[in-house]
């Protein structure tokens, strides 16, 4: 290899720098956020585990059925009916976007663009 003496250390330094956040934070995920749950409700439209991992899948499905198929049949949880809608469904119970959505999204470092168009329940643009 030409210039092996420069390339190999260079590569090591490069890989080291690029992976710095990984090994620096390894084994330390930080304290998990505590989400504010709606008072007076016992059940969501799906179980907690599903909602925690796959609420975005559900939202996408709702979006497509409501918007594209025009199917707005309500979903039932613990005897109550809910609209298939982020603004008019989910956020009616989970009325604090900051303490419910943002808390966790920030922790997981995801930036959904829902609120570019939809309104959080409180006056806040």
């Amino acid at each position, binding site marked *: 290899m030409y210039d092996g003496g420069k390339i190999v250390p260079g590569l090591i330094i490069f890989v080291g720098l690029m992976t710095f956040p990984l090994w620096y934070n390894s084994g330390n995920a930080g304290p998990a956020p505590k989400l504010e749950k709606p008072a007076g409700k016992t059940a969501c439209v799906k179980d907690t585990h599903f909602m925690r991992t796959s609420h975005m899948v559900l939202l996408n499905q709702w979006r497509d059925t409501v918007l*594209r198929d025009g199917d707005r049949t309500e979903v039932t949880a613990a005897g109550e009916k809910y609209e298939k809608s982020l603004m008019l469904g989910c956020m009616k119970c989970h009325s604090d976007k900051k303490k419910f959505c943002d808390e966790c999204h920030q922790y997981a470092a995801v930036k959904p663009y829902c609120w570019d168009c939809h309104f959080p329940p409180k006056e806040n643009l």
Partner: protein
Amino acid sequence: MDMKRRDFLKIAGISTIAGIGAPAALQVLLKGEVPASSFASGGAEEETGHGVAAPVGRRYGFVIDTRVFAKDQGLAQKCINACHRIHNVPDFRNKKDEIKWIWETGYANAFTSKSHNLRSDEVHHRKYMVLCNHCDNPPCVRACPTKATFKRPDGIVAMDYHRCIGCRFCMAACPYGSRSFNWRDPRGKDDKTGRYFIERKHLNKDFPTRMRGVVEKCNLCVERLAKGKMPKCVEEAGNSGAMIFGDLNDPHSEIRKVLASTFTIQRKPELGTKPSIFYIV
């Protein structure tokens, strides 16, 4: 040279086979995703002309009685404002960035292919309400490369703002100029005056805004229809008879009775788009 000729014949043969299959394939392609569209049944079209629709499923439409709007001067603006407010349509206060779902225009602008020579001054100077025609055979749906705009089974030509990539092919395709693009963030405000493009006091928080970079247009109030309400413009027009809304495919509907008893015109019917908005002039 022999080899060349043989190669040529092979290519020619393959292309011919492809050529025979092409028209059938094209038919399939052009059908798009809308089985209700009468376009697919091209051959079975009656000799009654361009305006015939296949009576499959529902097909919502309007009759707009322009005479009523002419008598009641403020009515049109009232309908427009109501629509734009409940749908959070921004007002950029400049023509370049303009967004409109429903608006008024002149006779020659609305009905470019209808002769406007020697008509009465009154008809000529009257304003006409125009909006998305919710065509039965919509060119915008054909043009969209992502199915972000599509035709629903009830005839509404809808937009999925989540999917729109902002290529604006639909705007080039629409022969009625019914589509607008979000050139800027509709939630922003004017740098100079500090005024919001959607006035805060008029925000309808039960309906989303749009985001920068997507196309939008009249949605025929799907969100209201789903709750059994009339489209907002129709509600505003009230029982003045200025706007009649209904299912064009239902022979017993009020709208069909009006269409059967009154002479109406459509915008650019010669393009075969089969508009669902009819005008009494």
